[in-house]
């Protein structure tokens, strides 16, 4: 049981730290709310609507590359660490593995995994963004439209209080 004591102490400390941080920020932080602060996203350009198109997310292809090399390293690393002991048997095994691995790599690259340039249909998406990004829109004009329904207004709040 004694071995586990540090873990328990760490656990308690972590919980305490979290709780105290919340408490401190509630007690100490100044509160001066205004419309922009209560928006879902405090900074950046305010979106008027969801982007309606589907647009390509090619992260999955990067993820495929990542997983491939991840798996390769899982095999290669232990071999590299203990090459002397593993000897020629493991050497040829690694060679065979690398050959099959290379086929997968060629496939992924041939399917465009390394074409990381600007997204091919970027032009179409940009042209359709008109109205979404506009200098006319301010925090007061847009926030009311997006998320102010049902919220207690400032004057009502004071009336309730």
């Amino acid at each position, binding site marked *: 049981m004694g071995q586990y004591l540090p873990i328990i102490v760490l656990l308690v400390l972590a919980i305490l730290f979290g709780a105290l941080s919340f408490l401190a920020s509630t007690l100490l932080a100044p509160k001066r709310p205004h419309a922009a602060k209560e928006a879902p996203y405090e900074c950046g350009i305010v979106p008027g609507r969801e982007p309606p198109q589907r647009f390509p997310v090619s992260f999955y292809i990067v993820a495929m590359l990542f997983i491939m090399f991840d798996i390769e390293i899982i095999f290669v690393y232990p071999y590299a660490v203990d090459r*002397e*002991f*593993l*000897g020629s*048997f493991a050497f040829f*095994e690694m060679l065979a593995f690398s050959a*099959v691995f290379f*086929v997968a790599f060629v*496939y992924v690259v*041939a399917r465009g995994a390394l074409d990381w340039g600007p997204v091919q249909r970027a032009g179409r998406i940009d042209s359709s963004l008109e109205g979404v990004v506009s200098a006319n829109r301010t925090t007061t004009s847009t926030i009311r439209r997006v998320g102010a329904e049902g919220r207690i207004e400032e004057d009502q709040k004071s009336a309730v209080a």
Partner: protein
Amino acid sequence: MFAAETLTGPSIPWFTLSPLLALLIGACVLMLGGSLLPQWPRGLYGIVTALSAATSIVLCFFLWDNLSDGRPETIIGDALAFDHFAVLGTISICVAVLLASLTTSDYLVREGEDGPELFVLYLSAAIGGIVMVAAQDLIVLFLGLETLSLALYVLAASNRRREESQEAGLKYFILGGFSSAFFLYGIALIYGATKHTNLGRIMETLSSQQAFPRNDVLLLAGVGLLLVGLAFKVAAVPFQVWTPDVYQGAPTPVTSFMASAGKTAAFAALLRVSVTALESRVDDWRPVVWVLAVLSLVVGSVLAVTQTNVKRMLAYSSISHAGFILLGVEAASHTGSASAADGIASAMTYLLLYTVLVIGTFTIVGLVAGRGDSASNLTDFRGLGRRRPALALALTVFLLAQAGMPLTSGFVAKFGVIRAAVETSSYAIAIIAMLASVIGAFLYLRIMVSAWMEDAEGQDAAPPVPFLSGLAVTAAVAFTLVVGIVPGWLLDATRQVITLAGR
């Protein structure tokens, strides 16, 4: 820090592994050629896949011959078994790849998205399946299971235009992930109980602990979890809930491959693990298999009757077929009886025959359903006998065979397992199986009535039958009838699968 001597690896019998290597080379050629060369001529991807599966089958026949001279043995440091059982399982899976790749080729042309990916996935799934069939070690078995399953998840979701296909893939993936976790936990517990993952060593350890009373809690929990994992893969009740949705949603050729290769691999693994490693605990796992078999038979047959979609019906029918094969597993558990080995032989024969039957049936369903697998309701089969008599006739042969009519391979299969059950004195389960077979016949009759006796209103278009699909259907019909009429040669051959390696 550095060991003085170097590791001497296990010797690798390359020829014994040649069926696997043929599939692997096929997959690599498709992947490299498919991605580096421009679009291949129509159907060539499928033909290359079929060729590598055919090569694999031919190599299996050579191996079968070699085995008949020698003894079954374990290879690569006891990781894989090399016996008639494994070779027959390999042949079943390769037949599934061969037939499914022919029909998939036409399916892809129909959907307008020809490419090598599906075929590569078929081949890698088959590699996983063959590893499962031959696995002599629980970890190797898990490796094969995952290789098979991951490929099948992607295959099920492979039609990106249809939401049903996506849904099927996701459902299968999530539930399959669960079952894999159960399976792995089972392996861990069995390892905890016996200190081994090798089936042969587990058998030795367990048979040396015969003293009563013994403490088997860890082992039994492990065996239970292992059974859950495998019962999920073979779609035995109560682990069948994914089957109708996935079979219906997945592209039809993929469904046929799942129903054939997936079942074969999982059943072979179930048989090998339970008969080899758990031989001394048959009394513990027999009741579990008994219950699984009865539930699968009854639930599969009864629920199939109420369906209106043919792919769903066939999914339930595949559940009931799983019940029949479990009958063989149950018979194999009566190790005291002289006929226990018949259980193994009949279950493996059933798997081979069912592979051909189910792929044939689903191929025809896919042809009738047409583009996007959209027309697979029972009403879409109306008047098929008038629109495409030959296709309707082939469908009738397959359905009669699935129902177990004499003179078809289905009768040979069902007769085999029921006889094995009777000869091991499991009369109750044999009677339940025969009753379930009668209930199940209603389902097949409904499809036949729809195809022959009901008239189509406004459905005059005859479904086109492309060459490769036609070839697959013809071969399957021929096999079904030949085995049904002259079953002797096959039964004589499969009688040899009863000697498992390391036993």
